[in-house]
């Protein structure tokens, strides 16, 4: 659901860049609390690569096939640094595969990245309330998709009333994707909890 170049209006594109640049600055600063960013770059980059490759996986839904988005999972695993990771991932998608555009990178990163950040917060909060990790994962997967679709719709409609119907259609088209994302994210979180719990932003020490 990445928007291509040439679709959005100048004010929307500019607003997208302002928000994304601000969030990049904030998240990169924040990500430096415990460890310098230089130390984290190699691991962060390679994991961004893993998410990039995972997002190339096709899942057939009815007659068409969709790509995994995994922005909720990205938020859960990478925390605040999911935002720069998303920015890099989308840059590479635009440059290497023409999924989405260059001028709209700010907007696209916001559409995908903000729900990722929210998923991270939800995951941490939900864990404190003793919700099962798998369910939380599924919730974050679904939530991140829904939020992304809402943001997409807002961005389109802000560009022009002409997009109202398009935005509605896009929202409907994403219902199956939301379900797929929820299930896959749930399973990934369950897998990570079992195999590499330190990748989740919660301390499983007492629950394992």
């Amino acid at each position, binding site marked *: 659901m990445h928007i291509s170049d040439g679709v959005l209006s100048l004010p929307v594109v500019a607003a997208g860049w302002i928000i994304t640049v601000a969030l990049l600055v904030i998240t990169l600063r924040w990500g430096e609390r415990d460890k310098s960013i230089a130390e984290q770059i190699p691991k962060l980059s390679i994991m961004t690569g893993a998410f990039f490759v995972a997002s190339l996986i096709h899942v057939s839904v009815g007659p068409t096939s969709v790509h995994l988005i995994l922005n909720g999972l990205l938020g859960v695993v990478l925390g605040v640094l999911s935002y720069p990771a998303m920015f890099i991932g989308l840059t590479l998608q635009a440059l290497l595969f023409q999924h989405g555009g260059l001028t709209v990178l700010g907007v696209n990163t916001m559409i995908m990245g903000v729900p990722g950040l929210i998923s991270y917060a939800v995951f941490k909060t939900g864990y404190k309330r003793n919700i099962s990790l798998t369910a939380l994962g599924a919730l974050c997967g679904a939530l991140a998709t829904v939020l992304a679709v809402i943001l997409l719709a807002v961005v389109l409609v802000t560009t022009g009333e002409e997009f109202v119907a398009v935005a509605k259609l896009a929202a409907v088209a994403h219902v199956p994707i939301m379900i797929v994302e929820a299930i896959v994210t749930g399973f990934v979180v369950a897998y990570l909890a079992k*195999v590499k719990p330190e990748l989740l932003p919660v301390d499983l020490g007492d629950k394992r």
Partner: protein
Amino acid sequence: MTKEAVSIRDLNYSYPDGTVALEDINITIEEGERIAIIGQNGAGKTTLFLHLNGTIKSCDNNVVIFGKDIGQMKSKERIEKVGVVFQDPDDQLFMPTIFDDVAFGPINMGLDEDEVERRVRSALATVGLTGFEDRVPHHLSYGQKKRAALAAVLSMEPRILVLDEPTANLDPMNRASLIELINDLNRDKGITTIVAMHDVNAVSQLADRIYVLNKRMVAEGPPTEIFMDFDLLRENNLDAPDVFKLFSVLSCFGFNCESLPLSINEAVEVLTKTIEGDEKHVHLHIHEHTHEDLEVLMHRYDHHHG
């Protein structure tokens, strides 16, 4: 009469970018044989294996397994006939538990729960991993992972077992036990085994017949014959087993035996037999041509001038 397990006729395959991977491959393997396919990196071993169980489909119906074109088989039949164990166990174990990984094939075959359960237990017992059902594959040692990957294929109870580099990176104990295990499967269950190997020192322990692959099948024959052919080895960047080389050296010193041994065990046999047959002793001596012969021999085994 034994049955033909594998029959490949004039198989050609190119990668999507046009590079030729396999050219004019012809193979016939009888049921119950132990085969090794040797060849350097990039010789096409993996591609050939993927044809063997129909993961890559040839358009010309030229891969025939037990008399039936593999292209015509349903997925279940295909994987029941040929099981492929790849080299890196990390690529093959992706489920949260060993049980799930070993059950993966049987579940895809559509077997019922009890049968899946039975097969998992039996496969794990075969490879010596009973009790590991709930362990996380990723946390196992390399040797254990290697055996788990084998169990995950054995649970499909294939008639033909294909293994890519089964002994690579294993320590001596794990290597010895894996070789024994593969041979047991061949002997006790009559499974046809096909291995691809770099480690020529272990080849003779796992194969009675060798194919040398280098995009084409450049040679075929029993190990001793293959390792005798210096030019063949040189051209295909292959080595002879150390024991074999050493007996070639001994023969320069006048040691004569019927056929050169390929492993330590064979060497002991050959030595005992030769010495006993030769009135309880053998002379090693330096004759007229010894130094010359040695020089030629060592030059042939030297890979720097390859």
